């Protein structure tokens, strides 16, 4: 598996970039979750800063709009004492015909240390990572339909906070799997962590045709799909990525696949409800469920900071033998 994404590792097999969940080991994922856990209480300290990235510069390079991901990356980097530069795609020189690689190399020439990249093209972060000098780190904050690995990590972190043992869990991912890089990363992460079962639920038009090869079962209705489920992950209907009539109408979609008090009853009584945001209220989830006591949607946002701190710290740390005991 590692050979598929060699650029993610250095010659010693240490994680250098964070581009995809695919090919990572269970130990790597667990290590990131454990360190993230020890970052959780930092948000409650008087001084919310630790010096792990002091003197380093992180660049938020978003070629697609984002609020929560960009903001939590920025806060995470600042809590690690990094300097943060936010580059907004619409104001950038890519609109003057410069390629994405020229843009990145230009910024790197200013001696920056880490890029957090979001782009509409699958593989963009990987392309950038393979063209930068060895000391520069790249984190994928979403590339096209491919992956959104840090979102998947904060999702599994949130699941672990509420349900201890992954091997007992049945998890349903509901909605637009076809256009969802979040779902793809989640499925990889949940499989690596050894969950008991993953089901995807949604209209067949929004499910990749090869979904079963990812170790996932497909169910086309909520009643059967949510039976015995411990964790429900709702996905956003991505209107901006729809290039055809993939859903009949918003009302009909909500009636068949929306999560409401009624459909939530199909799952286990203690099932938790997740959503990567932003929410389309009344399209994929009702307000009463999104704001209800089974929803951990805001916990996901809070956890995003600690998990992203952990991922950055993993990439930035060296690996020499310590002189200290």
């Amino acid at each position, binding site marked *: 598996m590692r050979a598929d994404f060699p650029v993610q590792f250095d010659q010693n097999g240490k994680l250098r970039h964070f581009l995809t969940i695919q090919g990572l080991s269970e130990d790597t994922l667990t*290590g990131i979750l*454990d*360190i993230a856990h*020890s970052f959780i*209480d930092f948000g409650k*300290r*008087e*001084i919310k*800063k*630790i*010096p*792990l990235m002091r003197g380093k510069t992180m660049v938020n390079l978003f070629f697609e709009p984002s609020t929560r991901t960009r903001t939590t990356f920025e806060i995470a980097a600042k809590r690690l004492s990094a300097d943060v530069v936010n580059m907004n795609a619409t104001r950038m020189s890519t609109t003057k015909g410069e390629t994405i690689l020229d843009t990145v190399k230009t910024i790197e020439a200013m001696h920056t240390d880490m890029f957090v990249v979001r782009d509409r093209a699958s593989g963009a972060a990987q392309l950038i990572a393979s063209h930068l000098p060895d000391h520069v780190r790249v984190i994928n904050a979403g590339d096209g339909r491919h992956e959104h690995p840090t979102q998947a990590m904060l999702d599994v972190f949130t699941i672990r906070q509420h349900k201890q043992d992954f091997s007992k869990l049945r998890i349903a991912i509901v909605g637009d799997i076809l256009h969802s890089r979040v779902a793809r990363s989640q499925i990889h992460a949940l499989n690596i962590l050894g969950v008991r079962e993953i089901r995807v639920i949604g209209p067949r038009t929004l499910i990749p045709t090869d979904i079963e090869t990812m170790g996932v079962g497909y169910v086309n209705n909520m009643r059967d799909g949510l039976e015995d489920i411990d964790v429900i992950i709702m996905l956003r209907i991505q209107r901006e990525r729809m290039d055809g009539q993939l859903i009949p109408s918003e009302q009909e979609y909500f009636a068949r696949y929306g999560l409401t008090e009624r459909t939530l009853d199909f799952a286990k009584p203690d099932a938790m409800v997740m959503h990567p945001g932003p929410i389309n209220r009344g399209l994929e989830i009702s307000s009463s469920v999104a704001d209800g006591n089974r929803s951990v949607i805001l916990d996901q946002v809070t956890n995003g900071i600690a998990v992203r701190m952990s991922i950055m*710290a*993993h990439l*930035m*740390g*060296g*690996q*020499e*033998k*310590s*002189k*200290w*005991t």
Partner: protein
Amino acid sequence: MDNTASNAIDNLAQQVVSSSIDDPLLIGIHTGGVWVADILHRKIGFNEELGTLDISFYRDDFSKVGLNPQVKASSLPVGIEDRNIILIDDVLYTGRTIRAALNEIFSYGRPASVKLGVLIKRTGRELPIQPDFTGMELDLDNHQQAKLYRDNGKLGFSIDETSSI
């Protein structure tokens, strides 16, 4: 308890008591410092539970050695604002652990004072940091390492030869 380690603990406890610090807050540094502080805490008696610090995130060699995967939680029982802190570690060597611990303490607030107690004060300081309370002193070369161990709740220490780095 190893006789030497046991004498050193008694020494340390004696000095902490005679310092008559007003309402001190005892904090141990993971892992060995917590073991020592735990014994002191039971011997002397304090108003609050023992505080613990894991200074992994404050180390100055992070960019070289990376994260310690076994980071433990830092836990302070109460706010430290305006408190008199007694910070405890097992071995004082380069002084870098203490520098990191002071930085971490100040991320929680501003204490009134901080005193340092160590079980073993050894040679090899790289920073201007000295203890206020000392269990015992050891004159060691740079290739020697004083290491505290705990066996069935009893503390002892060994002196090992380390390969030069």
